[in-house]
């Protein structure tokens, strides 16, 4: 395909700049071979490019510039680190209260899901249990049920607490007499508070699920074939033992020997 001088003049620069495709390049080359005028034009264009290149060779940038750029990039790095740190700080400030709320919420949910603490959980100290036992013993709160018959008390609580309530039966020789019982809470667990008249004094017993509320501490003594944990607080004696998964915390203003005797012979 032949090109006119007009076309050649228009695209001679693209030709020299290597912007033509091979067909265009071939067509223009063919024209240049046969046209002295366009050839001269091309030569002048080429010399101009050469002159420009010659006058502006690639010279190395000053070493000081290289150094300046390095310092400027260091500064940009430092600035970026500062920005990142600032962003982190802002997020932390925003996130900490949110995380606390979430943690509390999760903790609450967890405790609800867990229900009563299992036996393997943290044990309650006998000392703190004794405090409550003595408190109730001293105040002698009104009874839910007054009965002298242990079976009657057991029947009364059969649908009220998740464990069998068998009030201890003390030996006849002790002249202990069941007075009554009421629903109670030991820690966050259901319990039954039972009181007795023994001679001129009183005996109170907290009956609870010993699997749900394990107790530790106190001095362990043997009484009637049982291990009894023993705690003395402000003149009161508290003895704790368990039988068949049921815990008994016995509080009395009797002397220690009398209470051990009582527990040893109870069933």
């Amino acid at each position: 395909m032949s090109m006119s001088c007009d076309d050649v003049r228009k695209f001679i620069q693209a030709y020299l700049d290597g912007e033509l495709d091979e067909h265009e390049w071939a067509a223009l080359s063919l024209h240049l071979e046969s046209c002295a005028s366009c050839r001269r034009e091309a030569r002048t264009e080429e010399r101009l490019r050469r002159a420009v290149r010659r006058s502006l060779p690639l010279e190395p940038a000053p070493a000081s510039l290289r150094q300046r750029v390095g310092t400027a990039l260091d500064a940009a790095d430092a600035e970026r680190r500062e920005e990142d740190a600032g962003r982190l700080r802002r997020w932390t400030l925003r996130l900490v209260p949110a995380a606390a709320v979430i943690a509390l919420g999760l903790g609450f949910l967890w405790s609800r899901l867990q229900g009563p603490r299992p036996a393997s959980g943290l044990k309650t100290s006998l000392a703190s249990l004794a405090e409550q036992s003595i408190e109730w013993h001293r105040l002698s709160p009104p009874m839910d049920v007054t009965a002298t018959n242990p079976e009657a008390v057991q029947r009364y609580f059969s649908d009220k607490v998740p464990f069998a309530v068998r009030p201890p039966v003390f030996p006849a020789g002790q002249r202990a007499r069941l007075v009554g019982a009421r629903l109670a809470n030991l820690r966050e667990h259901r319990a039954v508070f039972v009181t007795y008249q023994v001679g001129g004094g009183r005996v109170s017993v907290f009956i609870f699920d010993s699997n749900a509320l394990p107790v530790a501490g106190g001095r362990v003594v043997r009484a009637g074939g049982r291990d009894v944990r023993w705690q003395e607080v402000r003149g009161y004696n508290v003895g704790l033992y368990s039988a068949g998964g049921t815990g008994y915390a016995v509080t009395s203003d009797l002397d220690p020997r009398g209470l051990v005797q009582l527990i040893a012979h109870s069933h």
Partner: protein
Amino acid sequence: MGLFKRRKQSGASQREVFEREALPHLDALHGMALRLTRDERQAEDLVQDALVKAYRFFHRFEEGSNIKAWLFKVLVNTFYNTVRKEKNLGKLRAGVELEPHRERYLGAATVAGRHAEEATLDALAVEEIKREVDALPEEFRTAVLLCDVHDLSYKEIAEVVGCPVGTVMSRLYRGRKLLQKRLHGYAVEQGYLKADAEAEPSAEEPAQAIASLEDFRRRKQA
């Protein structure tokens, strides 16, 4: 993304990757900045600003594309946004047009021959050529420098200055013709050449405006 992947693979920091990719072009960037600002101090400031900007936006650079063209784009944009604002734009644009005395010489003299002129271009002093390049209107100068000194393609120049390829071709054509005219005028002025109004190269585009290559190709296919 590609860059991020590459960084991950090599275990190099972004700084290391940037220095490896961009700093080899420092000399070219400095050369271009010098011709844009025509002032050493301003050129160094411009290069520094442009490289810091490029570093900040390095994640936007697409791996596989021409980093040199991308860096030139950042440099030219930085120049437009900062240095040029400080300078008097009117003065810059007027450039050569403010010096009509050479036209008088051209009108008065006669040219010995075309061959003499071609040879003259080769013989001209480097300083004079540089001076005439610097005197070109900014848009022409940028296109000519990117093409002739820095070897960017029309497409890359279009990308750098943010205009269509057809406009790049037009600027190159007019810039080179203007340069040719100035150098011819200088040669006559210095007595290298006898001036001849007929032989004076025209900075005007041919009768038909410079068409883009795409137009040309469409026309050929029709």
